[in-house]
């Protein structure tokens, strides 16, 4: 099931740093894909979704601190790194150990400037899902970028929380949230919150009558 691990020498700093960033980006993409896939299932496992979302948040926080997320990732390298993900040990090591690019204390403005360059490739890394929904994928890619925006600007928690905004009473429609974000994110969080609040459905009253009937039927059966 597992390919033999490719050992990387810690001494080779030049190789290790970008490799770590690549793997981290792959992990981020994989996590976002997992969250997207969630809503296709019968009903998403809330625990799993929360854990994946927390992982995404951690990665993005670290990437923000590094400033290293803005390194444009060519599509082919992204694909190759996904394949190698299975055999790498880098991400399993402590996030702080090994060679990493020194955090760039550069001002937010310069980081913002670099962002459009990263958006230039039409297809985000993790292009495996190209065929299925490019709009959705771009949404997720944009979403991660937008979260960095928000973190830089407002210091508020990243937009990954919006994933749960309408979980109450029904599973979240991630597509709607993400595609909503593509259009609405630029206007800031207000637009998204408005979207989220209208998306929250009322508590499940409809099925109660069905189960209530079942109760009734079972009681009758039991008493006869």
């Amino acid at each position, binding site marked *: 099931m*597992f390919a033999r691990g490719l050992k990387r020498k810690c001494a080779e700093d030049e190789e290790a740093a970008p490799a770590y960033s690549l793997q981290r980006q792959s992990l981020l993409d994989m996590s976002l894909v997992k969250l997207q896939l969630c809503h296709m299932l019968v009903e998403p496992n809330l625990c799993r979704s929360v854990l994946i979302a927390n992982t995404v948040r951690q990665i993005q926080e670290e990437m923000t601190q590094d400033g290293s997320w803005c390194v444009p990732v060519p599509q082919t390298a992204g694909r190759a790194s996904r394949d190698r993900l299975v055999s790498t040990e880098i991400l399993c090591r402590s996030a702080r150990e090994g060679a990493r690019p020194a955090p760039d204390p550069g001002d937010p403005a310069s980081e913002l400037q670099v962002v459009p360059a990263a958006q230039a490739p039409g297809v985000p890394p993790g292009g495996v899902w190209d065929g299925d929904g490019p709009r959705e994928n771009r949404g997720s890619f944009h979403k991660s970028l937008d979260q960095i925006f928000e973190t830089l600007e407002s210091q508020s928690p990243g937009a990954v929380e919006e994933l749960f905004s309408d979980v109450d009473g029904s599973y979240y429609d991630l597509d709607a949230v993400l595609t909503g974000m593509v259009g609405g994110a630029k206007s800031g969080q207000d637009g998204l919150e408005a979207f989220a609040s209208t998306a929250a459905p009322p508590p499940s009253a409809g099925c109660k009558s069905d189960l209530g009937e079942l109760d009734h039927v079972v009681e009758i059966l039991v008493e006869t």
Partner: protein
Amino acid sequence: MLVCQGPGLGSVTHKSTWALGARTKKWLLADVISTVEFSHSGDLLATGDKGGRVVIFQREQENKSRPHSRGEYNVYSTFQSHEPEFDYLKSLEIEEKINKIRWLPQQGAARFLLSTNDKTVKLWKISERDKRAEGYNLKDEDGRLRDPFRITALRVPILKPMDLMVEASPRRIFANAHTYHINSISVNSDHETYLSADDLRINLWHLEITDRSFNIVDIKPANMEELTEVITAAEFHPHQCNVLVYSSSKGTIRLCDMRSSALCDRHSKCFEEPEDPSRRSFFSEIISSVSDVKFSHSGRYMMTRDYLSVKVWDLNMESRPVETHQVHEYLRSKLCSLYENDCIFDKFECCWNGSDSAVVTGSYNNLFRMFDRTTRRDVTLQASRENSKPRASLKPRRVCAGGKRKKDEVSVDSLDFSKKILHTAWHPAENIIAVAATNNLYIFQDKAN
């Protein structure tokens, strides 16, 4: 890597039984066992499966004419506990899979158990019937009603023996109290109430009342966007009816006292082991998520299972566990792959033996691990048809994490991650362990018995 012979546990007689008899020869998804639980006396063993069925096994009485069958478990009763339902509002199917079964302490001839799927808890009564009445006045032997005018004499019906029939009937249905998926149920020591826990809430029920439950824990944030933690398991204290614990996906265990307030949102104690900063990775939180929490029979300790280890906690010490047992540390370097194939989210259970001197938990490749707390020894065993002959001792297994693989060792790279032992149960008094390996049930007994 860390396996050695466990005294007392070293020679474990294996006796394998296959649940549901001939049907398990064919692999059916609906037959995947999802929960295993011994009754309080240990004479009954209940299993629940993905198809909503409950199968109860009963231990055979000692029988001099058949000495080899002493202590064998045989099928006692089978019934359909839950059916798939459809939630019309969300357009989602509610799975019939049985998440948990908990027995009620025996109070009469009949036996009671609680079984639950994601949304509904049911109280089942299992009763025996070995007599039937003959000689009714108002109806014939075949059940047809008699014409009352034809009856000229009255007689008293006579009870006659019949073949034992075991009947299961649903006595209570506790529904509509959970928005999220129920992961735990636990019967209180007062024998009158029980709790049911889902991802965000814990409800308290009275066994007699089905249309009302009290919410005692609610960790749902006002703004769901801020959700970062869920409840993963909950249990009542075995002796103190006001105390319960619940574990979270962040690796914390909170102990609540129901006497302190109606809503136990503020815990009395919080158990959490500080993270080792040198081991921190992106997967740290996921592997710290507690998948099971169990009080010891004594009530003084509790045990938690996270992805890689089993921890024993002293209820008087919140800062760290008193014992940590590594289940499969060799997986630490594989967390990336295990995250990719979702195995990292597997929820393993753990359980104590009757005297709290040993614990058992499952792993992959149909391996399971037993830890003896007094001798500090552990053993790895495997539940598989190939390696098991009836009444032959199980051989301890070893997993080779790297380097040269010795004979009989299993290399980490050849572990079968689809063969996971998530559910185990230990007889309350004897050294008998029930192990669920996908759709097979294995029952192991200590040779000393």
